[in-house]
């Protein structure tokens, strides 16, 4: 078992100016399950492939344990990778697929067989060992790919969106299986996904990337409670956080028809690029539906109601003093949209207007200029 360290690791693809991964600094503890998450093209897969040795590192170093593996061949890095499309060898049986790396390494046949059988037992694959991959279902193929990694008994598991080819139900099931399996084996795991739910449910820690730059690293709770910037705030959480930039006048921000008090530190910290505005974020679950006359309440015109059984979400427009929809707010539903979680047993009608109020201390404040979080406590 080993730690993994990215030390200012950079990857610039030939013919491009901007690095795909820009000076990534990341330390992963022994036995830790770290999830790399971000939108497509953010450099998360490239980072993983750099660790695997499938991409060159143009600057910086990558260490596994204390060993610098920056220029080490992929096969000598003592890692195992699970690919998105599983990359099973179609001409080999399940057993041969799983034992291929050991066979190449020159391990005796009997020993390979025992190790393959042990892994197959863990993954419930024993009865499929003599089948070819094409005779397996998607979930079984996924398990074979996992088995191929386990059999090698590597220092680090690398997983590149291994669940994205499964149907929704199987994905949820396999998600928990992988999480518990890697923890039982105690192997350091780096897991790449674009799905923030996977990240929150599986990771010991999450690293969010955007445009090749690391945005924030932390536990799922950190990411949810104290996002470091507007991007992380909008990316983590489902449905996404409502975010809007509002001008501050006399210590109050004008949010729709309401005035919200802005803490002193925010105003004192204003820089020219902030233009006396603040970015305010509040999660759909931080809003309560209140009576019409409540002071400081926001008016939301209901466009769509999405009922999920346990929850219901209102997708609506934030109305300003004149009753017109406000444009300077956005959410997971798009620009000029606000999302509110409501009691699924008291769902408002479409087209009606509801009044909502932010729960105290559940708002997130960010600099309007840079998008960085403002610590108010």
């Amino acid at each position, binding site marked *: 078992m080993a730690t993994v360290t990215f030390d200012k690791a950079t990857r610039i693809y030939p013919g491009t100016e901007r690095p795909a991964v820009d000076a990534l600094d990341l330390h992963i503890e022994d036995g830790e399950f770290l999830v790399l998450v971000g939108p497509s093209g953010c450099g998360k897969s490239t980072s993983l492939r750099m660790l695997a040795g499938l991409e060159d590192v143009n600057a910086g170093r990558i260490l596994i344990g204390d060993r610098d593996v920056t220029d080490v061949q*992929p*096969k000598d890095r003592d890692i195992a990778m699970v690919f998105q499309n599983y990359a099973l*060898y179609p001409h080999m049986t399940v057993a041969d697929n799983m034992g291929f*790396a050991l066979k190449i390494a020159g391990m005796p046949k009997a020993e390979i067989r025992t190790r393959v059988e042990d892994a197959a037992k863990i993954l419930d694959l024993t009865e499929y060992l003599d089948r070819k991959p094409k005779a397996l279902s998607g979930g079984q193929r996924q398990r074979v790919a996992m088995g191929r990694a386990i059999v090698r008994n590597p220092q680090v598991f690398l997983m590149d969106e291994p669940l994205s080819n499964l149907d929704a139900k199987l994905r949820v099931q396999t998600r928990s299986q992988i999480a518990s399996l890697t923890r039982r084996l105690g192997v350091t795991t780096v897991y790449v996904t674009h799905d923030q739910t996977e990240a929150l449910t599986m990771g010991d820690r999450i690293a969010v990337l955007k445009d090749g730059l690391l945005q924030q690293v932390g536990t799922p709770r950190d990411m949810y409670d104290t996002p470091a910037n507007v991007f992380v705030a909008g990316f983590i959480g489902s449905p996404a956080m409502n975010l809007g930039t509002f001008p501050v006048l006399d210590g109050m921000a004008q949010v729709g028809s309401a005035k919200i008090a802005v803490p002193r530190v925010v105003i004192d910290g204003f820089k020219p690029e902030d233009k006396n505005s603040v970015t305010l974020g509040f999660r759909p679950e931080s809003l309560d539906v209140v009576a019409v006359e409540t002071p400081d309440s926001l008016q939301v015109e209901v466009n769509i109601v999405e009922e999920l059984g346990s929850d219901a979400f209102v997708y609506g427009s934030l109305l300003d003093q004149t009753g017109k929809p406000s444009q300077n707010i956005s959410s997971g539903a798009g620009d000029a949209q606000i999302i509110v979680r409501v009691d699924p047993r008291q769902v408002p009608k479409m087209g009606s207007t509801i009044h909502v109020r932010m729960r105290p201390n559940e708002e997130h404040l960010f600099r309007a200029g840079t998008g960085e979080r403002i610590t108010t406590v």
Partner: protein
Amino acid sequence: MTTAYVALASSTLGQAASTLFGVVEAVGGFIAILLIVFFVAGRATGRLQRPIAIVVCLGPALFLVLLGLVIPAITTINNSLKNQQFLGELNTKYIGLKNYTYAFTDPYTQQTIIRTVLWLLIVPALAVFVGLLVALLVDRMRYASIPKTMVFLPTAISFVGASVIWSYVYNYKAPSLPQTGLLSEVVMKLGWSNPPNWLITVPLNTFLEMVIMVWIQAGFAMVILGAALKGIPDEIIESARLDGASGIKLFRTVQIPMIRTTLVVVVTTVMITTLKVFDIVFTINNGNFDTDVLARQMYADMFVTNQVSRGSALAVILFLAVTPLVYYNIRTLRREREIR
């Protein structure tokens, strides 16, 4: 004189017009017949509808296949059982399988058969080896299209043209004279002062003729196998690299097994072409100096040395030899299609 000229021109014009009219008439008549047939077939109802449709749709194609393939095949098999010498000879007798016995016992024909088998084994193996090698090496090159074009170009040259080109390469001049043959010049520059007369040296000449076939077929093998290699998903290659397979090992354990069906199809296709080789042997030496092969000897028996029945027997042997290859090829292709 002018009038004569005009008269000539007008008569030429008249001829052209009447020819054109004849063509239009023939095509028109053909279309009219088709229309009538289809109209009648379309009107047919009830019990006769299906049989009429089958006859109308299948009939023309079946007729042409019969005329061009089945009847000649039967005639050839029939001829191979007779003692016919000339084409169109009357009063021929059936002599059983004597022509076949002759083919397998006559020393010259035996040599021909052995030589054809050698062609069949060596040429496909070499062509596929060269094609695969180029496909693999060129894959990582920067300007891959240039060497690929160079290797593929011979595929577009006719066998006769290729043979003429190579007969220049193999051209022999006494060592004291200025050399015109590329091969002689090269080996002499390399220090072999007295090279042989390539094309009459047995058995070297047969192998030199095989080189021409390999030259033509390697491009075909390269293109098909190159496409198959490209078709292997990158993820699988990367996965194999992580598993420790690289270079020859990767090639042997992953790439080759994954293009196996394509490989079989290419080998059998080149085999079929090789088995029918005629033009190269005919152009270079006309089968002399111990270079004869089945197709060339068959041609000579039929049209040169007046042994029609013996030639027919060779044709049947050739046909029987190709059949299993074609069958295997079709079966592999069909299985491939089932996988997809």
